[in-house]
Every structure is written in structure tokens, then in C-alpha cells.
């Protein structure tokens, strides 16, 4: 089991740069809406402000709130070590897609239990809705793994991006699977149309409701882990479905081209999320849940296209 040291460098880069990308997302949203908005580096200032503050802990909370935020951040950082960013190869290395997807389960279970831990109505409400949405989103993730396995016969993310980077002509099953997975990304990361990440009103909260009672450095850890989670999901989408330009050899030009195309593709995805968040509204819980069987049907179409057409 080899592990190239360069992979470590890539992953550390992602951990450090993900608040920057979230800042770019917020700036795009504010530009589309026509106001100046906060600066790109604002998430860094927010996190350092939170780290400097003291904490208020509820007298009803248990060991879950004590160790929870730490473990959530640790799990999110660990997943960054399992994905390729702009350099990949066919070596025998870590990066099993199952471990990656289920490692986000660690984040999910701790967040849901922190919501119930605070003994308030908002926490229970957020946990209940979040568990419901992610129960319906599990078949989408499973469908993604099936699709990638049928295409490349491999479960390792590094190998999948290496094999897919040779493709120049994308067939339609691929594009449909990409659309399906992007809806899965929106569901798992609490974005519109499932949840509004900007408000703190009862009607429109899911993720924010669960972490309502955290403060200080606990809140900083959970916020950073949600930034990392979104960026990691977007990197999986980019590197598994459109990995054109990713560096497959360890030469300087290939790495430079890989880095530039990666930044460009990531900015394009963030622009897509910004447009969706500006134009659509959060849908009601059950109307949003209706989107899932639609996506499963799309997925069925993609699988039949790969087999038959």
C-alpha cells in the first residue's frame, strides 16, 4: 500500500483553502444579487473570531457535545486524505469509495446526536429532518458507486479518476449520472432546495438547527468541517466525472495544467451552486423529498443507457 507524499500535500492544501472557496461562493452570491458583500477572506476572520471566544455549554448536554465537534472535524479532515485533487496515478493506494462515503456517516451521526443533546425543540426538529433527508439520499450515493463501478470496474477514487481522464467524449449516461450526483451533493450538504444555509428561522433550518446550541471553538470546528465536506464532495464530482486535465504523470507542466484546470472546474461548480441558491427557493420538506425518487428514476435511465444504448 503505497502513499505518495504529494497526495499528503494536496490534501493539506484542501484543508487550508476550503474557507477561501466558501468565501468565493458567498462573494459570487452577493455579486449576483447586486450588493458588494463581504470579502473573500471573511470565513477565515469568522473562524479565528470564534476560536478566540469562550464557550457556553448547556447543563443538559453529555459526552456527545464534549467530544462531538472534535471528532466531526477529525473525520472531515481524514476524508481529505482519501481523494485526489490534481494529481493521480494507478498505484495501489488508499481511497476506497465506500470508506469515503461512510466516513461522512461519522459526521452525520454526531451532528444528529448533538441536535438531540441540547434538549430544545430546534435541535430535535433539525435532527429529525436531517435524518429523513439523508435516509432518502442513501440510494443516490449507492447508485453513484454502482455507476462508477460499471464504468471503470474499480472502487478506488484515484484509479477511477485516472481511468476516466482518458475519455474525451462523454456519453449521455455519464451526464445523467453527473446531474443525479449533484442533487445528492445538494442534499447532503444542506443547500437549496433542501435547506437554506443562511437563515436562522425555524421554518428554514435543518443543519443550523442541529448546531444551534454550540458556541466558541466548538462552533468553529463544526463550521470548518461543513466547509471541508462541501469542497470534498465537489472534488469527488469533478474528479470522477470530468477529470480532463488532471495530472497523471509527475512532471511540472502536467502538475501546472492539472492545478489550473482544477481551480477552473471548482470555480465553475461554485458558480453553479451560487446560481441555484439565488434563483430557487427552499422547497417544503415533502416537496423536496419528492425530488429523490425523480433522481432514482433518472439513475435507472442512466444505468439502462449504459447497458443498452
Amino acid at each position, binding site marked *: 500500500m503505497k502513499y505518495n507524499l504529494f497526495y499528503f500535500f494536496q490534501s493539506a492544501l484542501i484543508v487550508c483553502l476550503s474557507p477561501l472557496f466558501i468565501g468565493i461562493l458567498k462573494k459570487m452570491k452577493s455579486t449576483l444579487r447586486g450588493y458588494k458583500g463581504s470579502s473573500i477572506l471573511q470565513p477565515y476572520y469568522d473562524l479565528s473570531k470564534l476560536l478566540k471566544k*469562550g464557550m457556553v455549554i448547556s447543563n443538559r448536554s453529555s459526552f456527545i457535545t464534549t467530544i462531538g465537534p472534535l471528532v466531526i472535524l*477529525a473525520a472531515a479532515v481524514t476524508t481529505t486524505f482519501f481523494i485526489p485533487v490534481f494529481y493521480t496515478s494507478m498505484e495501489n493506494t488508499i481511497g476506497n469509495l465506500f470508506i469515503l462515503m461512510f466516513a461522512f456517516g461519522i459526521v452525520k451521526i454526531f451532528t444528529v446526536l448533538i441536535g438531540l443533546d441540547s*434538549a430544545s*425543540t430546534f435541535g430535535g426538529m433539525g435532527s*429529525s429532518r436531517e435524518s429523513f433527508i439523508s435516509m432518502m*439520499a442513501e440510494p443516490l450515493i449507492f447508485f453513484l458507486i454502482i455507476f462508477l463501478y460499471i464504468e471503470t470496474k474499480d472502487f478506488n477514487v484515484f484509479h477511477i479518476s485516472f481511468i476516466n481522464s482518458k475519455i474525451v467524449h462523454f456519453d449521455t449516461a455519464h451526464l445523467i449520472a453527473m446531474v443525479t450526483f449533484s442533487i445528492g451533493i445538494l442534499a447532503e450538504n444542506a443547500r437549496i432546495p433542501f435547506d437554506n444555509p443562511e437563515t436562522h428561522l425555524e421554518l428554514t433550518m435543518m443543519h443550523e438547527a442541529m448546531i444551534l446550541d454550540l458556541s466558541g471553538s466548538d462552533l468553529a470546528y463544526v463550521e470548518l468541517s461543513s466547509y471541508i465536506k462541501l469542497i470534498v464532495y465537489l472534488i469527488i464530482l469533478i474528479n470522477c466525472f470530468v477529470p480532463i486535465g488532471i495530472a497523471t504523470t509527475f512532471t511540472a507542466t502536467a502538475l501546472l495544467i492539472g492545478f489550473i484546470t482544477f481551480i477552473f472546474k471548482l470555480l465553475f461548480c461554485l458558480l453553479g451552486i451560487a446560481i441555484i441558491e439565488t434563483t430557487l427557493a427552499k422547497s417544503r420538506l415533502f416537496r423536496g423529498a419528492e425530488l429523490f425518487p425523480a433522481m432514482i428514476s433518472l439513475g435507472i435511465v442512466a444505468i439502462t443507457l449504459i447497458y443498452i444504448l
Partner: protein
Amino acid sequence: MLPLINFQKDWLSLYFIFIIILIFIPVAIYTKGYILEYKKHYSANYMLVLIGLFVASMIGVVASSNAISFLVFWELMSIASFFLVIYEYMHKENLKAGIFYFVMTHISGLFLMIMFAFLYKYTGSFDFSEIIKFSANFSSKQKYIIFILALFGFGAKMGIVPLHAWLPKAHPTAPSNVSALMSGVMLKVALYGFIRVIFIFLGSAPLICGVIVLIIGTTTAIFSILNALLQNNIKKLLAYSSAENIGLIFAALGISMILINYNLLMGASLALTAALLHCLNHAIFKSLLFLNAGSVLYATSTKNMNELGGLHKSMKVTAICTFIGTCAISAIPPFNGFASEILILRSFIEAITMVSNIWIIILIFSCGIIVALTSGAAFYATAKSFGITFLGKPRSQKAEHVKTIPRSMNIGQIILAVLAIITGIFSPFIISKISYYTNNLLDISGKNSSFKNETEIIIFTMILIIITFILYMFNRVNSINKNVVINDTWACGYNSDKPYIQYTGSGFVQPAAKIFGNIANYNKKVNYKKSINISQTTSDIVEDYLYKSSLKAVNFLTTKILKINYGKIQLHILYIFISLIIALILVLKFV
């Protein structure tokens, strides 16, 4: 010819004996403390003797090498478990649940006797090793008959739909350590029987048998977990969750049977290894969860989740052990449920790419999507069970006055929790051991390429621990001068500090109840006569539609047959003579 009780040293028997003893030791330690609750009203020696008899008969079933001793030990196991289920005989409804369980387990015994009779007829021997020699010579029709009998016989004991209705009645009424043994171990003994008959005796089964097993397994899984979501009784939720896991194992066995039929033996070995690994893991974490439910019952004397809450302060060890059990059942890495869950999902995915018949691909794909949905729902159900019971504020008086738990109960739980972690982290070694034996079973020689790269989970755990440690150090350094205040919950300023503003168990699953409520006959009635009152009830729809109508049919038939019975003794002697003559004629004709 006297049937000698031989014991065989087959790896399958040894594996299941290992599971039985592994679970029995912590449960025995737990029983030492748990029996104190029952000392006042019931007899403690009675329970200890019966548990000993129960475990000994289970070991006898798994180790026996001919049909007669198998059936004798099976009967002994059924009777011992029946007496254990009705241990608390002072509550009348326990007797009803016990009698239901007794009838179902004897139906399974009846089917098993018929199956072994047919095996004797086809092969001429009761001994397992001789039956194995005949396994290549069964005709297709004989295989169908043996398969149907095995499905009903072992299925009634395993709890697959539609023969599952006794599970949510019998497992909650038994005392908790007995429930742990029944749920964790007895269901696996039925699985052992099924695997031995189908895979070892029959070798390969026709395609339709594998399809039936896959469909029944998936139906059991989705039906049970949707029923489990809507329960408020902790032990009933866990009983339905056991049925769901048995459905998952059954579906994996179905895939293995389909792949053997197509001679794709690599995939079949993977699916069989997944099923066997999940047997071990499910035994560990389900016993752990039942022992935890027993501790909660001991401490607060209620099983209803909506009356509990905030138990993490008074029952620290139990809370941590339940948390580990919840993580294990929701397939969180690096606990043991994760390893077997991804093996089962992998066997589904690899089967899709290996098979070439389009209808089988469609079937396996649909069942795979439903299995993914059940794993999401299992997370939902057990998060509810842990969160509502242990976290938050106590919701009633019963949760505030908590008895202390004897140390032996805690030790039993801790042993199982540690086992869950160890089998999770070292799962690659266990998988390679099991796969060695399944490859031998299916006669594959050469290297097994399905199981490479399994040691990733160890690396993942190590990285996770290192990063957690680094962050913990950072946190310590960061919070040196910081002010940590412990105060009431903020809740956006809307906190009135009453316990009923929290979510209840039924409220937590309300979105699922709205969409999937029909599967569990979910009824919500609001009465507003004198005070406003909500009652929410669920019931098992298979029991309502299937069992009650068949019972009505049987009642109808008995009223008709009753007319033959006049009560005169001469008529009864005549009936005995006639049936004796008929039996003699049948025996002479068929033997």
C-alpha cells in the same frame, strides 16, 4: 440402528459454536447482576438452569452430524426458549405472546421433520456426511421440494416475512438477557441450518430458488425497518431491527445462490462471506443493544421511549455502550457493522456486473437500491432509540429516579462493546479467514482477487486517531484562558426549561410516518372531549391480514369438523382403528 450422536468438526459448525460461546460469556456475566430484579417474585435458579439448557441445546444443534440428533436438540432449544419467554408469567399478555411463539416454533419443527424425512427417502441415510456424498445426484424436482421445506422450516425460526409475526411479540416479553441470546444467537442457528441444507447438501439450487430468497430477504428488510421506525417500545424496535438484519443476510445468501447457478463462483464466495460476517457482527451488536435495553428497564422500569430521556447523567457506562452499539448498527467506520455492510453492498454491485441476463440485473439493481434505503432507515431508527432515551432532559418521573446498576451488568456490556470495536478494526483478518473457508467450500482454487485492499480500514482508523489527537492538543492549548460557562440551553431565547418542549420519539419520526405510515398501519387519533389527547398506534399488517384470516378459516373448519365428534367412546375407538389401518396401508405402499 441406533443413531449415534456424532459431532462433526466442520468449519461451519465451529464458526457458529464460536459465535454462540462468544455471546454467551458476556450475557452470563450480565445475568449475575440482572437476576437481582427478579429475585423477589420469580425463581432465579429456574432462569439459570433454563439458560444453561438453552445454550447447550443450541451448541448441540450446530454440532450435530446426523438428522436425528439435530431434530432432538432443535426441540430442546424450542422448549427451553419457550419457558424462558414466559418467565414473567404473572403478566397475562406474556402468556399469549409465549403461546404464539410456541405454535410458530413447532410449525418450523414440523417442516424440518418432513424435510429430513424426504432427505432420508432420497439418500437413504440420516448421517450428514453420507448426504453430502449424494449432493451431485439430486434431481431438479427433488431440489425444489427440499428448498421449499427448508425455506418454511428455517424461515419460521428466522423471522422472515410472512412468518415473522412472532418476533416483535416474543423478543420484547422475554427478559432482556434472554432476548439478547434469542436475537443474537438463536436466529443465527436457524441461518446455520439453512446454509447447511442449501449450500452443502444441495450444492447448487435452481435459479428460481435464488430469486425467491433474494426477494424475500429484501422484502423482510424494508418491511421490518419501516415498522421499527414507528415503535416507541425500545425492545420492539430492536426486535424489528433484528428482522431487518436477518433479511439483509438472507438477501446476500440469495445473491450467492443466483451466482452459483451461473457458475460465477468468485462473486458467490464474496456474497457468502458477506452473509457469514454479518452473522457474527449482528450477534455482537444486537446482544449489546438488548443488554443496554435491559439495563434501562432495570433502572427505570419502563420500556417506553417517550417517558425516558436524560439518562446519560445517571447511567454513564450504559450510555457509552449504547452509543457504541448505535454506531455499530448504523455502519459507521471503524465499528464492525461497517465492514459487513460494505461487503454486502459490494456483493450486490459485483453481481450486477457479472451476470448477463437483463432481468436478473434489473432485479439485483432494484433490490440493491432498497437495501441502501434500509441502511439509511436503520440509522434513523437507532439514532431515535439512543437519542430520545439517553439524551436531553428526563421526560417523566420514572427517568429521574434511577436505580444504580450492579457492576456485573456493566462489565457484560463493556465486554461486548470492546468486542464490537475490535472486530471492526481487525475485520480484514476475519474476512480473509472466512473467505479461505468459503473458497474451499465452493471449490475455487487459486488466489482470491475479490478481497484485496481490505486493510484500508486499519489505515483509516490510524489516521483518524492521529488527527483526533492533534486536534485535542490544539483544543487544550486554545482553551487555556477561555471562559467556559455552564448554563441552561439557549435555544434561540425560547427556552422555558420544561421537558415537554423536547421532541418525543413519535415526533422524531413524523416525516417518515407521514410517507411510509401505511406499511405499519399507523393511526393517529386526537381526542378532545375532556382534555386533548393524542394516541398513535401501529400494528403489523401481515399479522392483521394474513394470520387473522387464516385463523378464521381454521376456526370455521373446526366448527364443521366438530360435528363428527359425538363424545361416545365407541365412536372414538372406531376412529382410532380406521386411522391405524390407513397408516398401515400408507406405510406398506410407500416403503
